[in-house]
């Protein structure tokens, strides 16, 4: 059983995560994905009969950024939450040159020209995702710098 340590702060903000057979973690960096346990054949047979959830189910209207570094720039919370929760997906789409998550971020940052935004993320990829342990706040910060 590999358990991902979920920071208490993130839990407080997340307040809810519903994962059938998985552990969730909203981190601030890359790799905040889920680690699954290898299931036995028996588990496979029975998996997903019941939709289980490993946390107290409440109404989490924020997905949480507490536990992440404060952003030097004033950004909207929604964008911060979104980026923290979708770091890997955004990185992939930035590298490819566009996608739904990049469009979503453009909308949250009130960028009008989504195509130009996507192209700019791709061109400036290395100045936005500066390293493997880059964090949400830096990514948003770097985007703000690039988009100037």
């Amino acid at each position, binding site marked *: *059983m*590999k*358990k991902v340590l979920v920071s208490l702060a993130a839990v407080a903000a997340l307040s*809810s995560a*519903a*994962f*059938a*057979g*998985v552990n*969730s973690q*909203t981190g601030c960096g890359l*790799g905040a*994905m*889920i*680690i*699954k*346990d290898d*299931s*036995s*054949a028996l*588990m*496979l*047979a*029975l*998996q*997903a*009969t*019941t*939709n*289980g*959830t*490993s*946390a107290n*189910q*409440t*109404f*989490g*209207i924020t*997905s949480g950024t507490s536990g992440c570094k404060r952003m030097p720039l004033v950004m909207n919370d929604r964008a911060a939450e*979104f980026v923290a929760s*979708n770091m890997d997906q955004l*990185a*992939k789409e930035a*590298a*490819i*040159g*566009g996608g*739904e998550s990049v*469009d*979503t971020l453009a*909308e*949250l940052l009130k960028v009008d020209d989504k195509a130009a935004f996507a192209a700019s993320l*791709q*061109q400036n*990829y*290395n100045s936005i*995702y500066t*390293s*493997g*342990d880059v964090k949400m706040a830096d990514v948003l910060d770097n985007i703000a710098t690039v988009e100037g």
Partner: protein
Amino acid sequence: MIVMILPYILQANVLENALEKAAATGVAKSRYWHLLLHMPSDVSEVDDPAFFLAPGGKCDAEAELNATLAALYNETRFDDNATGCRFPARRAWLQETLGLEGLPELHCSAYETLVRKMDPQSVTLVFSSAHINSPASMFGHTFLRIDSSYESKMLSYAINYAAGADPDKENGVVFAVKGLFGGYPGFYSLLPYYEKLKEYRDTEQRDVWEYDLDLDHDEVMAMIRHIWELKGVYNWYFFFDENCSYNMLWLMEIARPDVDVRGHFAYHIIPMETVHATEEERLVRAKHYRPSKRTLLLAYEKVLDRRGETEAMALADGTLTPGTVLNDSARDTQMKRYTLEAASELAEYRLMKGAVDKATYSERFHAILSARASLGKGEKLPVATPRNPDEGHRATRAQLGTGWRDGHPYQQLGIRPAYHDLGDSDIGFMPGTQIEFLDLLARYDQDGAAVEKATIVSITSIAPQSAFFKPFSWRMHAGWDQNFISRDTLFSMAVGAGVAAGGTWGYGYALAEPELFVTDKGYGALKTTLGLLFEVGGGSKLAAEGGYRFYADGMRQWTGRVEHTSRLSQNNALKLAFDYTDKTAGAQRSFTAEFVHYY
């Protein structure tokens, strides 16, 4: 003094009036009040006492209505703790229906914050289909998505109903059994849609289908007010009926009371069936598809050549550096792009499987993407949209057939409440998956009527291996059948595993299956099986399976079956089958022609 008491007298009066009016108009008997209380007839399905204001409210709609009116007029707190703030749907509906006057002013800041943040505009029913290798997930999962004014659907919120149990902490069998029989409390939850996509689409690798509902803003708001009332409220979770899908139906009816989606169901509720019911009620206005991570990787396999596949895996494993791929002057740029893209997906997949630690992954993932970004915008990966699950056959199957066994004619009749087997058309289903409950087949021949087969449960997962995925295939069944070497219908159990390969043409598989036959003394056997299944177009298929059974006492037995299924329409098919089975009395051959109907 009079001035002090006056408000209370007035309050008592308006309450009195409201109670009288409620009694006179009989609103407690109305459909909508029963919807608000989740009462199909006289008893609410909500098990949480916190949901009721009257002592016997669970079983008494009228008492609950009167208690609600009294509480609404006699609020002692006017903030989030007020009855009216906890039950905004009841308050709004009663106010409108009974023309309530003089309700106290409330400040429901928590609820208002939620509504502001959600910005509810429209609703979508979301269905996640089967997870490879887990036929139990074939029933799928449904939840509702509340869409906002944002163009991006990722910023919508998902309303989900699930059992409050941690499958990681529970023994698998216990988890399944308790889930089946109401051993867990079920709760509604609200989460950003992107979190649900990460869960179903990415982690569990299930394709996601969206059905936009034709509900207007007022109807959506009615739903939201009621969702708030369900916050933290539990019902006991029953896998077969009071499950994730069923609890979404209440919400749809709350939004639009003149549709009766629950009326489509008698005793068990299969998530995809709720989509069918919703479409029959003409609630669906548009449909969308989101491929799972696995579907994406399979699409990359299609565009990559053998070398690209090998390189993508090596990149993900860290045995090849992205620079090597970039600097390969002999290689086509688009192929490099696809290779790096697939590698990033694979690296993430390895992380999810726990095959790599987070730090290693982050560096590798970053290096791959950095290389990919340097190659500029390329072609978009083509991902074919599979047939929509709503085009699949319905859950219940009835079959009527005739045939000859060893020259003697017979008729047969079969019924199967759920759900799908390898012989049924794959349109709308994941090929190679089978899950059946209570499949019953009766035959009438020269000896009279007899039970040919009575399956309790049978599950099959034929999962073809590919460049990126190496799943094993497996099969299990428990029930009465004619497989034994004697001519009796015997109870048998088997769990076997093996491998499969496949493509758009179909698939082939090899399995080894230890079996147990329950006779007066019990027989152990090992069956080795080879199977081939060809998709012959239009959802029709041709399947052949041969088996050789080694009995523990030294007996040997060949079995074989060839079956052709012609899909006539979504819910009708014609089956032709030939069976061969070695019996102690000699070889037994039978030929069957059957009409199959799903409903």
